[in-house]
């Protein structure tokens, strides 16, 4: 029968976002834009203390305030509050200001408890804030260190950062009837969000909950369910008998919307005289907040025979971590890739060459990525001018501005996630494709019609894609870069089945076998005699009163997807030795994702990932005040992200491996960016800055700490 996977016309091309115009013109309705009649606004009262106990709380104290409509207690007297921002209660009122005033007026008595605001503080204090270490090992590191040609020791680290979704967490909850609730939520999982709220209202028999998310402004792993605000908005809406909007404010987003754990490592590593990594020993720690771990993969990408790792999670009084774009991997890459560079420097070997010599034959999880990494390293090095322009670490040119180059690798899965779709074909030729997935800004809205059009031989605009609702066939949350694979497969298979039905009718009319038919260019025709055929409309008219509705699961699309990608990035930076300011001049990202479904969207994902990585490496840090435990930069002014002028030139290269099928690309491009930048900065200034973000003050401090070039550093 048709097209993909045998051949492709639409998949692999550049198709602009179908909803682009709606978004840039402000017509796209996000959760915040849902203004239903009688809408109330809710705000959450949050703990003003980093650690406290509620002694007394009086929800009645807000009753009768202007606009007050409903109160909901999240925690009772006696509850412990684990961080500044922990949810206590919520109020719905007629206006946002009234809700804010009401929350402020709520009478609560706290017993303030001692808090911990940093990893060092936790480690120093010990006890139950320091979890039992996790040890993993293989081979014999001590023996390997004895035979090593080069050994390095270093400390590396990364601060906690937050997701900074441009659209904050939140929703509008609307009870259309006592057993019919609709949620307009900013979520990465319409299904799980609806299910989560339904599960919360066990007391309502036959409760129907639908989550509608036609557009959303970023989640990055932090929006997989209703969250507390989802349940609270639904509770308040039920109490008040009116729809309730509860969107977090920027400060709440920072403190309570999730974060990427910190990661610190003391590493000793060694290689033989060929540059092959022989021993890797790491003591690592980090914090994921007051109850989450801070695990990350290490050793990463490379697979030293002898390794030993001890990881310790420490707890601080801060909001909990959540998955964040390639959870753990940016940290793993950051630490591992700095170690690889330090070894290369110590041995006097080119860092690209050292990496090539260490590419693993088999990646732990996936098939070998060796040939892909080789291609990527080669292309990236060429594009950044690595071999002509890079000088050995610590080389000084005249004047305060020094230039440096660095590279790093990353890897990710990206398998097709669970997904079901339904393809409907109407007698008038209309085609509808329904899939209960969601578009996080990644472009799924455009992918769905592209795939259907590919299979049906139509134009993208001929397909009405319907996604972003839990009422459609379940398609799972968008995480792990699994959406594009799952959705492409289920849509393709549902479309194939539906097309088969059209073919059956057309075959009868044309007097041929269905197997002889082809659909292309808006026609259904006999493959051997293409002039013998019908227009799409004529073919569909044969359906009479019938509408085709065919569903498929992504599992039916065998061999059309894969998993396991490798990516390489190269950074060129300049560093002002006098002020410590780092400027990213250029970043080359070479990405691999099998079959590129939509080249524009795919490149856009890589740009976005790289930009997040640049922010991670140079600018972002959640900062907690030691004395109060409050975040001192819960905004976008003091938690400052890069502006376009801070980004430098970003060059994206997509490797095409269509034979591998579809693989997700949302997460991998953000993995190696910070590591490549850290290596470039070290190359420029000759010393390691101990942790990211590489702020000017830290760069200066690192330079000042270097009295004499250490043994082995500055050579090569």
């Amino acid at each position: 029968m048709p097209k993909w996977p045998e051949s492709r016309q639409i998949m692999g091309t550049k198709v602009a976002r179908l909803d682009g115009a709606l978004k840039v013109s402000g017509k796209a309705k996000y959760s915040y834009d849902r203004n239903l009649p009688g809408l109330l606004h809710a705000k959450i009262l949050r703990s003003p203390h980093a650690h406290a106990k509620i002694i007394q709380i009086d929800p009645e104290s807000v009753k009768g305030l202007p606009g007050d409509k409903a109160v909901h207690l999240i925690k009772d007297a006696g509850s412990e509050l684990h961080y500044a921002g922990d949810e206590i209660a919520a109020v719905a009122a007629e206006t946002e200001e009234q809700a804010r005033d009401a929350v402020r007026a709520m009478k609560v008595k706290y017993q303030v408890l001692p808090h911990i605001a940093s990893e060092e503080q936790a480690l120093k204090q010990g006890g139950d804030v320091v979890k039992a270490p996790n040890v993993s090992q293989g081979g014999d590191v001590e023996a390997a260190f004895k035979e090593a040609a080069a050994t390095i020791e270093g400390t590396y680290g990364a601060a906690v950062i937050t997701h900074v979704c441009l659209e904050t967490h939140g929703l509008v909850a609307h009870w259309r009837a006592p057993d019919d609730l609709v949620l307009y939520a900013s979520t990465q999982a319409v299904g799980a969000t609806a299910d989560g709220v339904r599960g919360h209202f066990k007391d309502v028999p036959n409760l129907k909950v639908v989550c509608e998310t036609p557009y959303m402004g970023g989640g990055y792993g932090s929006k997989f369910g209703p969250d507390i605000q989802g349940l609270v908005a639904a509770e308040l809406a039920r109490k008040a008998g009116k729809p309730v909007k509860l969107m977090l404010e920027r400060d709440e987003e920072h403190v309570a919307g999730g974060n990427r754990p910190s990661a610190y490592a003391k590493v000793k590593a060694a290689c033989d005289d060929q540059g092959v990594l022989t021993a890797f020993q790491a003591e690592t720690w980090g914090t994921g907040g007051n109850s989450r771990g801070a695990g990350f993969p290490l050793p990463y990408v490379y697979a030293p025979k002898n390794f030993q790792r001890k990881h310790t999670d420490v707890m601080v009084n801060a909001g909990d971590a959540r998955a964040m774009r390639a959870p753990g991997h940016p940290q793993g890459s950051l630490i591992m890739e700095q170690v690889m560079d330090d070894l290369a420097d110590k041995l006097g070997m080119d860092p690209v060459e050292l990496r090539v010599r260490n590419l693993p034959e088999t990646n732990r999880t996936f098939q070998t990525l060796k040939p892909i990494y080789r291609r990527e390293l080669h292309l990236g090095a060429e594009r950044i001018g690595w071999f002509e322009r890079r000088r050995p670490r610590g080389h000084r040119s005249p004047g305060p501005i020094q230039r440096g180059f660095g590279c790093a690798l990353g890897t990710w899965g990206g398998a097709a996630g669970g997904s079901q779709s339904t393809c409907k074909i109407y007698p008038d030729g209309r085609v509808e494709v329904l899939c209960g997935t969601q578009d996080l800004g990644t472009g799924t809205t455009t992918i769905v019609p592209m795939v259907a059009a590919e299979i049906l031989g139509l134009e993208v605009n001929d397909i009405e894609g319907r996604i972003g609702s839990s009422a459609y066939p379940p398609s799972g949350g968008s995480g792990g870069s699994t959406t594009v694979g799952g959705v492409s497969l289920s849509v393709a298979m549902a479309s194939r089945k539906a097309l088969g039905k059209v073919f059956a009718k057309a075959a009868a009319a044309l007097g041929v076998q269905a197997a002889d038919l082809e659909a292309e260019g808006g026609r259904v025709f006999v493959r051997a005699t293409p002039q013998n055929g019908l227009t799409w409309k004529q073919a569909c008219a044969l359906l009479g009163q019938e509408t085709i509705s065919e569903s498929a699961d992504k599992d039916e699309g065998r061999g059309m997807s894969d998993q396991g990608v490798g990516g390489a990035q190269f950074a060129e930076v300049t560093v002002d030795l006098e002020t410590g300011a780092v400027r990213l001049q250029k970043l080359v990202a070479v990405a691999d994702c099998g079959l590129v479904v939509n080249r524009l969207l795919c490149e856009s994902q890589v740009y976005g990932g790289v930009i997040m990585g640049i922010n991670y490496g140079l600018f972002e840090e959640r900062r907690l005040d030691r004395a109060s435990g409050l975040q001192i930069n819960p905004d976008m002014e003091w938690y400052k992200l890069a502006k376009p002028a801070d980004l430098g030139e970003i060059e994206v290269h997509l490797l095409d491996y269509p034979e591998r099928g579809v693989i997700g690309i949302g997460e991998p491009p953000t993995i190696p960016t910070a590591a490549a930048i850290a290596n470039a900065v070290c190359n420029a200034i000759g010393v390691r800055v101990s942790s990211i973000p590489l702020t000017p003050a830290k760069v200066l401090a690192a330079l000042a700490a270097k009295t004499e070039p250490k043994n082995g550093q500055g050579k090569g």
Partner: protein
Amino acid sequence: MIPALEYRTPESLEEALDLLERHGEEAKVLAGGHGLIPALKLRLAAPRVLVDLRRVPGLSSIEPLPEGGDGFVVGALVTHREIEVSPLVRARCPLLAEVAGAIGDAQVRNFGTLAGSLCHADPAADYPAVLLALDAEAVVASRRGERRVSAGELVQGVFETALEPDEIVRSVRFPGPHFAAAAYSKARQAASGFALAGAAAHLKLDGRRATDIAVGITGVAARPFRAAGVEDALRGQELSPEAVEAAVRGLAAGRELTSDIHASAEYRARLAEVHAKRAILRAAERGSAGA
């Protein structure tokens, strides 16, 4: 949200001064609003009466000083942007145009005023470095009469000035003479553009030798200051990079420096040195290019 207040728009300076005399501490003057409105939102200021100067005539121009020379006077409502592009300022004192153009972003420059910045006394404001280096002075009016206050005297501390509640800065005077050998160099706070450290150099040159030198520093301490030690070390000297490097070292020593989320005191001290050096060397370069 801004707490409720009375908003007045006097049509003359006398009327504005009357309002201030009447309401005293309870009133606040409003110019470009880019210092005051954020302060109101943060409830750092809570005046009962807001006296908007923008309808007061005669405060919006830049005029040559009547006594001749290259001096000029900038009215209280002249914006950063107007200073940045003023042909008169560019011809007579490019340093002032340079610092005005280095403030914030285009929106801020289109609203904020020189006088407002001075009266706001934000320790991270850019102008004070330049105003100190140029010996500028504020012309201060009240119902009690008029007085002149030097820029260094006017700015007393963090959001603190030498103004009485009934006083308005009607203009800022730049007496001159102004030399071509002048430059402003700063480290910008990433979001706002405010100076983490800013240095202005104003030099009278004889070849590569500085016969006179003024260096103003802002952003690093509660008050802007003249780097007297640097000036003394370089006055009469050839401005070689080595000499300047040596002279700026420790320029903020002995002062209580600001330490906050944006920069530690040590880092600010370092930035002050670097930017003083850069301002002096750039000024010297401009002076010799123009000579």
